[in-house]
């Protein structure tokens, strides 16, 4: 970033919209499957806004919002209500969106995240609940389209809006905040965190102010960022653009700009003069919500271990570095993958290195998540075991891992790696078995006395002697034969 940028302080606040993973929609019984269902299949009079239809609140969506708010350290007021946000758009069937205005389900929380080894805190203004809109499909470019199609399958899907305070000071912080937020949403099971499909959407309010000044500068809202990378690039671009405008003596306009990922820039969409007046007023079709303290306590009790706590635990239990622990816990699936691999017997540090190293590199290149891979913790643990026992060199293991990763089933690749080094000649196995028996007199006696457990130990010794190259089934058979 240019040197003059340091004369200004960057101020970023984020508005994240997260769909809630409920079976049915926010105000009716329709399925929330809008990605695979045929257009307009999952609709009814309520989510189509047909006259006379009335909304009924989905309790699970309220619960998920409160769960999110609690995970973000918010206060949950005892009284909340829904409001109508009025505007015309063809994807909004009622001509208003049921949302929350002055009495949201929660407010005044915070989210901690790490950057460069330091913990930062960003305030959470509020988490509120609303309904998603339908989707428009234009025939060609939006402004020239001769026809547009509307699919209302998404209309009425429960949507949370998580509004941050303007506490973020850089593109890096913005990205880290969203990454951590996404991890929390996944941990508590309210959202899959898929940004490309729009399950999780992010708008950024970006402004600059001379360093040291308290009041905020003119704010620009940046929309349409659908990846962490896009958030980072868009904020960075916007900071640079605003710096240039200010440095050249210009004035910034309060406006909405869209991020164009292909061109790597933001484009003006709507200026303040045309800003909407949403004419909010209380939704008369829904009674206000009384949020009992018992209910909140119940939801709080049901919260799982959150990323920050898990990170601490990974550091103390597995001796991981703060950096590795933070990275591993940034995704629930990755943290679980790691924990399972370690539980199966792989040394924690080695497992972490594999997951954060080769595995992540391959996943990132393919834009995939760890849960999308056919490689499971058992596979990684076995591979690590082969290295540990000296059966595979580090280089061979890397090659093997990539083959495993690319294959629809990692089993055969692993088998092949094991097989290529495995001792199958009976003569050599015979020698090994004799050596085991000679050096473990007590265990041999124990086995004779009927302790099955002792045989396992003896097989283990054989694996050690053979550096993992012996076939354990063969060892088992030979040992039984020779001892009895």
């Amino acid at each position: 970033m240019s040197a003059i940028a340091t004369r200004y302080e960057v101020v970023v606040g984020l508005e994240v919209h997260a769909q809630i993973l409920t079976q049915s929609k926010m105000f009716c019984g329709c399925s929330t499957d809008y990605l695979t269902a045929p257009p307009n299949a999952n609709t009814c009079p309520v989510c189509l806004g047909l006259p006379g239809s009335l909304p009924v609140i989905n309790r699970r969506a309220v619960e998920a919002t409160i769960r999110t708010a609690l995970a973000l350290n918010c206060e949950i007021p005892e009284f909340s209500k829904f409001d109508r946000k009025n505007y015309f758009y063809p994807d909004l069937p009622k001509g208003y969106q049921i949302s929350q205005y002055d009495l949201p389900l929660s407010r005044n929380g915070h989210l901690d995240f790490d950057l460069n080894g330091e913990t930062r805190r960003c305030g959470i203004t509020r988490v509120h609940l609303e309904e998603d809109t339908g989707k428009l499909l234009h025939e060609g470019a939006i402004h020239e389209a001769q026809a547009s199609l509307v699919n209302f399958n998404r209309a009425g899907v429960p949507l949370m809006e998580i509004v941050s305070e303007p506490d973020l000071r850089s593109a890096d912080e913005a990205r880290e905040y969203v990454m951590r937020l996404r991890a929390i949403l996944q941990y508590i099971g309210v959202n899959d965190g898929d940004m490309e499909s729009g399950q999780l959407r992010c708008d950024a309010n970006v402004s600059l102010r001379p360093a040291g000044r308290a009041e905020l500068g003119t704010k620009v809202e940046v929309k349409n960022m659908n990846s962490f990378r896009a958030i980072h690039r868009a904020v960075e671009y916007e900071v640079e653009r605003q710096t240039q405008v200010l440095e050249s003596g210009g004035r910034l306009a309060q406006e909405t700009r869209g991020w164009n990922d292909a061109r790597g820039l933001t484009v003006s969409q709507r200026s303040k003069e045309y800003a909407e007046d949403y004419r909010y007023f209380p939704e008369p079709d829904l009674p206000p919500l009384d949020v009992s303290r018992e209910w909140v306590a119940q939801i709080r009790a049901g919260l799982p271990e959150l990323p920050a706590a898990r990170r601490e635990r990974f550091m103390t239990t597995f001796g991981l570095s703060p950096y590795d622990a933070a990275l591993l816990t940034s995704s629930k699936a990755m943290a679980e993958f790691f924990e399972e691999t370690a539980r199966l017997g792989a040394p924690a540090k080695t497992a972490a290195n594999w997951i954060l190293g080769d595995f992540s590199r391959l996943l990132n290149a393919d834009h995939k998540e760890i849960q999308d891979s056919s490689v499971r913790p058992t596979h990684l643990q076995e591979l690590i075991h082969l290295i540990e026992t000296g059966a595979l060199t580090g280089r061979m293991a890397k090659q093997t891992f990539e083959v495993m990763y690319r294959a629809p089933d990692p089993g055969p690749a692993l088998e092949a790696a094991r097989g290529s080094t495995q001792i199958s000649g009976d003569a050599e196995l015979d020698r090994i078995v004799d050596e085991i028996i000679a050096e473990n007199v007590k265990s041999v006696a124990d086995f004779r006395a009927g302790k099955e457990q002792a045989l396992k130990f003896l097989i283990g010794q054989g694996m050690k002697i053979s550096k993992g190259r012996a076939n354990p089934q063969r060892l088992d058979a030979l040992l039984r034969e020779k001892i009895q």
Partner: protein
Amino acid sequence: MKLYQRTIRDLHKMLVDREISSVELTDAVLNQIDAVGDKTKAYLLVTRELALRQAQAADDRLRANRDVRPLTGIPIALKDVLCVTDVASTAGSKILRGFTPPYSATVVERLEGEGAVFLGKTNCDEFAMGSSNENSGYWPVHNPWALDRVPGGSSGGSAAAVASGEAIAALGSDTGGSIRQPAALTGIVGLKPTYGRVSRYGLIAFASSLDQIGPMTRDVVDGALLLQAIAGHDPRDSTSSSRPVPDYLATLTDGVRGMRLGVPKEYFVAGMEPAVEQSIRDAIRLLEQQGASIEEVSLPHSDVALPAYSNLARYDGTRYGFQAGGGRNIIEEYMLTRQQGFGAEVKRRIMLGTYALSSGYYDAYYLQAQKVRTLIIEDFKRAFKKVDALLGATSPTAAFELGAKTQDPVAMYLNDIITIPANLGNVCGISVPCGLVDGLPIGLQVIAPGFGEEAALRVAYAFEAATEFHKARSPLMGAAA
């Protein structure tokens, strides 16, 4: 007496005793619609085939003596704001022309469950916005007592149908007096239940926080029967109450002895016809003679508030009903559709609502209106600590001539001034015939506390039982010989 002149209770007995069949009865009412429908213009749509099919089914039920209910086989009219599956439902608006909902209102389903017979959809002011039925997007309704007069509104079609023998009973909806005022002006009984007593699911909304569906009938007993059938909690309407529904007939005839009845001095408004005032004073005296104690009370905030009209935003011509066509883009199409699809009164109210909610005006209008509403609620609470029910006129005048007030919206709004407080105050009210002024009917309004329908019905019944006013029949219905 002709079949179409009778009450639900009478006809129920005749049906059960096999004196008549529902098909005969339905035929008689349909014939009356054929005979006088052109004069009243009460219906927007007559569902003849549906009615006869339902009548046939009701007869089967009666013959088998299977689950026979008080409304089984009774022909009933539905205000056009009520959705009926596969039956055109337009709320009296051109913008919903051609809209046939794929669902029925909960009240419609309940009446179907009772075995009632649906005659059709009755005319009304567009989206129930009006007090004379002259705002119908299709045509005005004429009062069966004098065809040059309005029947009141917005449930004017339902009122005219019941008063002309074109229905035995009807459902209306009341947001600011739309059941009670036309009932008074056509000489029938109309009851606005407490908000939450009757499900609004499938009622095309006017002001969601005030709308209630209610019965329009020949007498108070019929009103109680019809209310009994439609009242109660509905999981599809979160604003419907889960309070148990009392047996309205059980206390109907208990009389007013020992009851305390209040007379709000503010309800004798300026502009009230002296003859109307006289009739109301007579009615009060009569109830006093029946054993009620009467006292004057005060409802100082009998003001009119502006509800919001965002319920109309959805009619943009993209999904159902009327579409203007010819717009060069979506915004232009919205504008053309709404320009052509909505009538003047609806547009006026959209403007008022939009203006009142705009930033900069919100506090002055919307919040002020909310405060007034709170004051009205407090007024009623205070009054009902002292008395069991309130008495007053339903309308300050008898039916006026068509066109008399169409150029003066404010004069038209004043027509609602003594009915609106019951909607804003979360209470219930009933209008019962209390006399004729120059041959035109007028109504006594009984207002009872929230969920106090039993008390309202009981007072209204006591009055009705002691008078003959409800037996008067409009010239179109014919003398009850």
